[in-house]
């Protein structure tokens, strides 16, 4: 599996959206490149390899989430990057990494708080998770707000975590 595909699977696991939704945003390559630029390819490859190995070792989503928490989120070096990636997917905004992380692992000029692009804002997954549309885009139409949203469409079941390659 390509590193980008692993990145998409990793993103799916972190956000609990399926890989089709992740890919459908059109942002995966851009976010992957941003992460490579800010944290450096060796670190990101190590992170994705770690994740890919976990998917092979785990037999359920619950187990995988436990492993991600223990091995990645709680890891000083990888955790901050991962939490930032979740916020990036949710809002389209990259938040500058913490001072301690930057001092320890390196500073990069692109590591400043910014909305990646107009399209990244509109692709923010938090709005989907809220069963609405991004504020100011993807309008649902006249009068829709007087009824509950249609939440029958499920974006869950992030991916089949057994190796698909």
């Amino acid at each position, binding site marked *: 599996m390509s590193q980008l595909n692993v990145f998409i699977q990793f993103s799916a696991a972190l956000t609990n959206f399926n890989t089709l939704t992740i890919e459908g945003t059109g942002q995966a390559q851009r976010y992957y490149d941003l992460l490579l630029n800010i944290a450096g390819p060796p670190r990101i490859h190590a992170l994705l390899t770690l994740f890919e190995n976990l998917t092979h070792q785990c037999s359920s*989503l619950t187990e995988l989430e436990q492993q991600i928490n223990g091995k990645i989120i709680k890891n000083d070096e990888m955790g901050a990057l991962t*939490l930032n990636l979740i916020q990036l997917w949710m809002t389209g905004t990259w938040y500058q990494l913490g001072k301690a992380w930057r001092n320890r692992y390196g500073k990069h000029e692109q590591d400043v708080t910014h909305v990646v692009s107009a399209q990244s804002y509109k692709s923010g997954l938090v709005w989907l998770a809220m069963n609405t549309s991004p*504020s100011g885009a993807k309008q649902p139409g006249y009068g829709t*707000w007087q009824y*509950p949203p249609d939440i029958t469409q499920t974006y869950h079941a992030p991916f089949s975590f057994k190796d698909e390659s």
Partner: protein
Amino acid sequence: MEKQYDYDVVIVGAGIIGTVMAKHLASTHQSILILEAGEPVSDWQAYEQRLDTFYRAQIKVPNSAYPNNPNAPQPDELDLKNIGNEPDTQGYFVQNGPMAFASSYTRTQGGTTLHWLGTCLRMLPDDFKLRSTYGHGLDWPIGYDDLQSYYEQAEFEIGVSADVEDQAYLGIKFSPDYVYPMRKIPQSLADKFFIKHTKNLSVRYQDHSYPISVTSTPQGRNGMPNPAYQNGAGYTPVGAAGYEDLGQRCEGNHNCVPICPVQAKYSSLKTMQQLQTQSNVTLLTRAVASRLLYKHGTNLIEGVEYKRYTTPNQPEYQTHTVTGKIVIVATHAVESAKLLLASGIKSSSGLVGCHLMDHPTLITWGTTPTPVYPYRGPNATSGIESCRTGSFRHQHSAFRVDMGNDGWAWSIGDPYTQLSTWVNGSQNEAPLFGRQLRERIEHHFSRQCRFGFLIEQPAQRSNRISIDEKYKDALGNYRPVINYQYSEYEKRGFVAARHISNKIFEHSGVKDATHYDPSLANHVEIDQQAYQVVGAGHYAGTHVMGTDKTNSVVNRYQQSWDFENLYLAGCGSMPSMGTANPTLTATALAIATADYIKSKG
């Protein structure tokens, strides 16, 4: 020989007041020039650039779609802080305090209707006689009846959606058979929740009981046309300026403030678009009026001096003058007063710049027991209007409740604020991701509700804008210096508002989540209870109308008492706002003034 003028009418400001007046005068006056200080928004593409700016803005405050222009600067909520012993000069305003004036406006073609919510409440008959009835603030020289037919015209210009049967309360009257141009905008799920849970709920002040009832809000956004409009002629919604097919209906973008992406919401760009077919109306943008020209001892304004720049980020400009038989200053309550003061015009009454008003706004928020799915629909579709007047106004401010459909966006900056806390973890909780995060987002954000209590602020002379040689902008024009505070009358209004919020929340099973951050601007304590007051963007009162030159700046036609060809049009002429968002009333006044000018020939 009669004096020759460059134009019959020179209007300063291409916002709603300036453009509506130009439209009404275009049939009787041969040449009209509109001077606009800000950047042009000349077509749909230019508007889309603002939309793109909004998408890219990290913090989406009301002006986030309209970047600050150093040559025509504007205030911004992000500039606010608690004011200490020294004036706060960080933003465009020089804030002398003691409270920060916490509202913004927009200096771009289209003006603040670009980012307004679009609420089109009429004022109540009581609001016009606040001083004589309740002993506070100022009276108007006219009453509701004088404005009633102009309200109807203003509702046409803006394109208001509402049902008369919902709006005929507390003395508001309509012409027989009148209907609004469009039917009411559908109410949100949160509105319906509170309609259900406030049945039979009331509050007592002194000996009177006031029912707490939820009313659909009249809105300047496109809904379903009412076929009964104008005796069956109907109404055709006005689409986006330069893209007429777009914006025929509100599409539920829940982004009225800062920018409606389809222009279903009215902005004065639409009126300007209608003026494009008028060859006798000229718009000049990037032209900042800097002085009104007159000879001392005379009662005529000869013309307007303005500074023309070519690009916002370069302070180079050329100074021009233009003469007009009639000069209309309609460039926002603060900017209009500033222009007069910069011209040495304090008026016979000395009241130019005084009586600055807003609606100090108390926000409360909570969690509903069942999902109401906010972050959908227009930012507000209903309000609680029952406390807009009553005998309690002897003791404390009246208020209305703006019922938000925007979750806790205005309250604490959600969904961003809590999302960040959940993802990054806090002292109480480890970081959330995956299913837990999804569940938290879905559960919590679907149950957020928010009230905004807009507190009546009677005119006080000491709340004012002034100018100071020390404070100028890039073009050498004055920056507004603001003195502002809340009165005890208003503070008692905050207390009453908070009491009602508590009562409604308790009655509805809403868990109150309101908390105020003492480090933010305008944190006040009353009887050991904390309050945080924000602005509503409802500037008014800086060139009030009155009955004579000693008690006011303009007469009932917004005509200067001191210069007979000068009209100061806009919210600045209003001696009170009551609890109504002022734009509709100012638009009605603008049309009345245009009629008066036409009647004079």
